[in-house]
């Protein structure tokens, strides 16, 4: 049988073929065999097959042995681990041969090493599992569906699951997903159109999973016979993608709402991209914008340009991220304050490749800040330099902040005031009022915005103040503190009091002057009319004795007139300028001096005098007045002594507030004050039948005392005695 042609064909066969005899010696073999399986590169004909063959599994040896014995054996591919540990995939077919059939006894061996292919398939399966990419096939002729293991895994079905088309479709989530896949599959079948889609399936265990399904169509005679494709679990990626999309969307909305412009700058392609918000902020049109960076830098305010460009350069070089505030000049010339932030992204080699950043308009913020600063400054300055006292007071009436004027008015230092409550130095009678005023302020009562109250100055005197208050609320609407204005009206109140006293004094002086004028006119008239009358009588009278009588009366009237004029002179002198001549005088000394001068009178009446006056009692008085007063009172006591009793006079002094009270108590006739009380110190008022009673003494005494800002009063019981009380300013 060994013909040259056959031998040639065998030699050049693309497969590895060996022909052996029954003793397993080579009859012939193809070049492929020699190349792949023979260890010897020389001619092996007539040598035993296994002498020069590569290492093969024992199964193969057996198969060959069976083959020469007449048994055909086919192996479609088997994995072998060789004794040396090497992995080998072999595929063979052994066909027995006899003389009768092929012209020789032995066998024809086809052997193929499919290790490399099998490895690839194995890797493919592994890859499929790892990548979660499965495959599927729809045979339209048999109407069968085939899923690979991974495809089944993704559907979470058992490995022995055999799907059909309808079941496969029904795994897709009801609604748009199922509709979509139905449409795509039917279009593919009808039109041969491939598809690539991302949809949700509901697995056998009920989980929703995002998958990517791809399909290709095999056509025969213009008709689809088969659909094959991949099926990939993209759940994780899809979810991230969706989340990313949502975040991006949200970010877009946020930046738009917040009016934040964002930009990206590709440093490699020198491409600067702005979003719409950026164009709005910088007030430029997109088409106006040719040279990106130059356009930006042209809008920057000249004063800020150097700094902004320097910061940009540093950001581009990756030295420092951009974080600057700068001004831009808009086309209409107005100025806008911009805040800019950027982040520089570096490549693997550490070189900056990209920048991304945001800009927003802070003009309003800046102007609000400026206004706030100005307002704060002006408030602080007003507060500090205000001529009226100002304070910030907490809701529990603690001082939080006080100004100089307030400190000055109250006499405390700032530190001292901040340690105490406003109520600590409030006049006790005004505490209730202060609290109700505070409540009115807190309640926002707009009517009673002012309140007059009294404080105690550090040195104890009373400070009168008008308080005005403005409540300040915190961000929650609760009372934070109260701005209090404190108008010190002490001097006003004092001068008002002084004025009132002055008015009172003036009024009484005016009254007494009017009285005085009438008294003067009355007395002068009495005397003058008497004299007129007497003169007239004298002219008519012829009787000598009667003329003498008349002459005597005229003389008496004349004397009375001059006496009256002398009294008037005394009174007028008291009325004018006593306060300027006040001196500090010892009461005791003056009393002693007076008693010495009336010693004769005292002795004559056998009067007893008890003096209980402290040496330390000094008063502010005009010496002559004080002497005159004491003398007048003492002589009155003696003049109107009771004939039933030996006169006894007691003189005492004691301190009464700022004054000294001097009392003269006698046991004389007394006076009916119910009858005469209102006239007791009147001019020319007499109440006793006494030859020397002129009604001028007490009148002058009262005037002298009042001229020295003193007070005189009287207590008396008829036939028991009289007490004269005098108060004069202590010195």
């Amino acid at each position, binding site marked *: 049988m060994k013909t040259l042609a056959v031998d040639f064909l065998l030699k050049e066969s693309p497969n590895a073929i060996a022909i052996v005899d029954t003793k397993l010696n080579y009859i012939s073999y193809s070049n492929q065999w020699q190349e792949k399986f023979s260890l010897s590169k020389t001619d092996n004909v007539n040598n035993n097959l296994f002498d020069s063959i590569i290492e093969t599994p024992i199964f193969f040896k057996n198969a060959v042995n069976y083959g020469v014995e007449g048994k055909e054996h086919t192996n479609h591919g088997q994995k072998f681990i060789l004794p040396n540990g090497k992995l080998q995939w072999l595929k063979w077919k052994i066909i027995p041969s006899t003389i009768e059939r092929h012209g020789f006894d032995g066998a024809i061996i086809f052997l193929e090493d499919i290790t490399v292919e099998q490895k690839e398939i194995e890797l493919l399966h592994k890859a499929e599992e790892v990548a979660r990419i499965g495959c599927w096939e729809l045979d339209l002729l048999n109407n069968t569906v085939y899923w690979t293991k991974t495809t089944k895994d993704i559907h979470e079905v058992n490995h022995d699951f055999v799907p059909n088309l309808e079941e496969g479709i029904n795994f897709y989530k009801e609604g748009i997903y199922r509709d979509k896949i139905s449409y795509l599959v039917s279009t593919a079948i009808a039109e041969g159109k491939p598809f690539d889609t991302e949809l949700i399936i509901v697995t056998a265990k009920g989980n929703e999973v995002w998958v990517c399904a791809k399909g290709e169509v095999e056509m025969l005679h213009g008709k689809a016979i088969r659909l094959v494709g991949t099926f990939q679990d993209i759940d994780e990626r899809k979810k991230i993608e969706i989340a990313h999309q949502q975040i991006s969307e949200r970010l877009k909305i946020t930046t738009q709402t917040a009016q934040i412009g964002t930009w990206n700058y590709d440093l490699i392609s020198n491409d600067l991209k702005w979003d719409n918000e950026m164009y709005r902020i910088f007030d430029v049109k997109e088409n106006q914008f040719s040279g990106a960076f130059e356009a930006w830098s042209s809008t920057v305010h000249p004063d800020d340009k150097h700094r902004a460009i320097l910061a940009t350069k540093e950001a581009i070089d990756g030295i420092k991220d951009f974080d600057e505030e700068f001004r831009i000049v808009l086309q209409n010339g107005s100025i806008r304050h911009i805040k800019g932030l950027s982040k520089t992204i570096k490549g693997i080699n550490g070189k900056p490749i990209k920048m991304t950043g945001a800009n927003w308009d802070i003009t309003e913020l800046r102007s609000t800040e400026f206004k706030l600063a100005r307002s704060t400054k002006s408030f602080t300055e007003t507060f500090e330099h205000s001529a009226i006292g100002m304070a910030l007071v907490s809701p529990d009436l603690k001082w939080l902040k006080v100004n100089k004027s307030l400190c000055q008015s109250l006499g405390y230092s700032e530190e001292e005031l901040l340690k105490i409550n406003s109520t600590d130095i409030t006049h006790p009678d005004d505490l209730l009022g202060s609290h109700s005023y505070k409540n009115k302020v807190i309640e926002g009562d707009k009517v009673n915005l002012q309140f007059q109250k009294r404080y105690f100055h550090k040195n104890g005197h009373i400070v009168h103040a008008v308080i005005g208050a403005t409540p300040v609320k915190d961000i929650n609407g609760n009372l934070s503190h109260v701005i209090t204005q404190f108008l010190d009206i002490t001097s006003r109140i004092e001068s008002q009091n002084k004025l009132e006293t002055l008015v009172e004094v003036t009024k009484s002086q005016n009254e007494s002057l009017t009285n005085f004028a009438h008294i003067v006119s*009355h007395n002068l008239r009495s005397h003058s*009319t*008497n004299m007129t009358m007497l003169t007239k009588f004298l002219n008519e009278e012829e009787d000598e004795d009667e003329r003498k009588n008349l002459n005597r*009366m005229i003389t008496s*009237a004349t004397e009375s007139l001059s006496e009256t004029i002398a009294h008037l002179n005394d009174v007028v002198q008291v009325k004018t300028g006593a306060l300027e001549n006040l001196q500090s005088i010892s009461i005791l000394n003056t009393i002693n001096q007076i008693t010495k001068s009336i010693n004769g009178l005292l002795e004559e009446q056998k009067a007893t005098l008890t003096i209980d006056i402290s040496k330390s009692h000094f008063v502010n008085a005009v010496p002559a007045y004080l002497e005159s007063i004491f003398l007048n009172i003492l002589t009155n006591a003696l003049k109107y002594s009771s004939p039933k009793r030996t006169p006894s006079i007691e003189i005492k002094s004691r301190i009464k507030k700022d004054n000294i009270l001097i009392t003269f108590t006698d046991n004389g006739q007394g006076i009916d004050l119910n009858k005469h009380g209102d006239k007791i110190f009147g001019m020319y008022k007499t109440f*006793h039948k006494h030859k020397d009673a002129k009604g001028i003494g007490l009148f002058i005494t009262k005037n002298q005392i009042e001229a020295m800002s003193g007070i005189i009063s009287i207590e008396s019981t008829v036939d028991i005695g009289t007490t004269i009380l005098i108060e004069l300013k202590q010195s």
Partner: protein
Amino acid sequence: MKKVETCCIIDDDPIFVYGTKRIIKEVDFAKSIIVYNNGQDALDGLMKICIANEPLPDVIFLDLNMPILNGWQFLDEFKDCRSPKSKKIVIYIISSSVDPRDLERVKNYKQVDTYILKPITPDDLAKILGATVES
């Protein structure tokens, strides 16, 4: 011309009393004259007359400024102690005061007929006499 039965002068000024008495005699104004030196004396004296059921004066010349009890006080007290059966006494206030407050105050006393400014003259008395007689 009919003269007044009894005339009463209440004044602390002896010269005035002298002068008035002299004029009364000159014009023959009254049959008798009673003089008191202050309001209290007058009140006491008149009470005594009243109790003794003797005739009270027809006319009283009353000074205002007097010690102890002045003219006003006298008027207040005298009003209270007059008995219903007593005859009408005409009171004339004779004063040196030109104080308008005094002139105003007189109006409060119905028993006061006229305010006469000192010194009293014969004409004043003649007028009084005329008025008294007419009434």
